[in-house]
């Protein structure tokens, strides 16, 4: 009789521990998703600064600068996560072209303000990437915690669903961006 009660008590404690652990992981997953937004917003705010700083020196690259500003405007006004993901991808490509073209301007390369802003934008791109990496890592932990035995028997009963990993939905984003460094313009 006592043995049975002991076994039931152990099972209850284990169940509570499992539930709490899954709750903690799920909240970390939600936080990780929002952290990506934090970094994307930071990028939106930095871009006009960069464009204004380089505009004077890169007057021949008006097209490239315009593309960056238009891509930013579209990304800011995107509707829904899938749309936002695609527009952010286009913005990343436009910025990549701008960085590559800036290599042609030695005066810009030596300018401290430009170097600082390039560093800020590079860092922001990195932070977006690492935020996505962290989100995928923590989602994998969460999914593994749900799907291993014996947790998988109870996880769906307790109301936990596997989290979706961040992935590229638009196939064009997987292509290597083309960079044209010729001086034609």
């Amino acid at each position: 009789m006592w043995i049975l009660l002991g076994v039931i008590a152990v099972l209850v404690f284990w169940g509570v521990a499992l539930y709490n652990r899954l709750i903690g992981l799920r909240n970390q997953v939600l936080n990780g998703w929002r952290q990506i937004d934090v970094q994307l917003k930071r990028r939106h705010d930095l871009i006009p600064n960069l464009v204004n700083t380089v505009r004077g020196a890169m007057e021949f690259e008006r097209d490239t600068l315009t593309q960056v500003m238009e891509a930013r405007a579209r990304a800011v006004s995107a509707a829904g996560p899938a749309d936002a993901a695609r527009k952010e991808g286009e913005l990343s490509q436009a910025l990549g072209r701008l960085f590559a073209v800036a290599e042609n301007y030695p005066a810009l390369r030596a300018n401290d303000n430009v170097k600082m802003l390039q560093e800020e934008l590079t860092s922001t791109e990195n932070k977006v990437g690492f935020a996505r990496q962290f989100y995928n890592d923590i989602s994998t932990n969460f999914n593994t915690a749900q799907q291993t035995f014996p947790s998988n028997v109870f996880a769906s009963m307790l109301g936990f669903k596997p989290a979706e990993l961040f992935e590229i939905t638009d196939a064009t984003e997987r292509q290597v961006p083309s960079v044209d460094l010729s001086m034609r313009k």
Partner: protein
Amino acid sequence: MAVFVAFFLFLGYGFDRFYVGDGDFVFPFGTFAALGVGGVSAFSSYYSGDRAVLLSTGAIPIERALGALAAAANSPDASALLVPEDDALKLRQLDNVVEEMSIAAGLPKPKVYIIPDSDPNAFATGRDAEHASIAVTRGLLDTVTREELQGVVAHELSHVRNLDIRLMTVTAAMVGAIALISDWTSRGLWQGSSGGGSRRGRSKDKNGAAIVLLVIWIVAILLAPLVGQMLAMLVSRRREYLADASGAELTRNPLALARALEKIDQAHAPTHSIKRGTAHLCIADPLGKVIGLRQGGVADLLASHPPMANRITALRQMGFLELGHE
């Protein structure tokens, strides 16, 4: 780590049985006393130790370094502080790299410090992620690229993430406790030969296994300080490998950290700013190549860091540039 704890418990058991308890096992006053004293000193360093360590190395908070640069740039008298042009950029890069790595690890951003030493090194301190600090020498900033700096910072942040500081504090407490037990025993063995004779006489009446245990225990006591130190350094070396691997997990770029370690190894002179007490927290052994040059078992056993060549090989294996032992 388990071996370490077992060794300590064996010493404490023997101490309490043979020394305190006249041959019978009693409540382990001795073990608790030693652990208490060792623990107090170690855990007081746990709570305020990071400030002490940072002060002892002369670390400057990065905000102050950036502010000094800005002030020097704005003032007309630029000869006071001959700063290189890209110094502000490098400090900004360091700050950004630390923030990037803390995003990748999902931890709060630690405080960043610069140590004005030309030898490349870095260390992390702080009892948990909320109270962590990372310090980097100026020599490191001048030597490595941004990618490699990311690898080094990821290694240091992994020490914080894996709670290595807490582990090394517990280890230090046990090393201290082992030294205390050994000290108390050796005093007693010399002083108490007359009293001990009667003690030993009484326990001779008991079974022979107790005698054997006593002999083994005495040998252990004599070797205890050395063995304790060796075990502590073994723990430290394993955690260094773990920090390398965790850092590679954060950056997904083990080869960058391997290149950084190569550069640090080549440039490495003793880092005078970092004193012996904090040696185990750094990325490279700051006590200089003295131990590293002395090949052989003893030198390897007492080193707080694994040999650099082994670390680099392990990282290159992670990057599939070398064959593993699978």
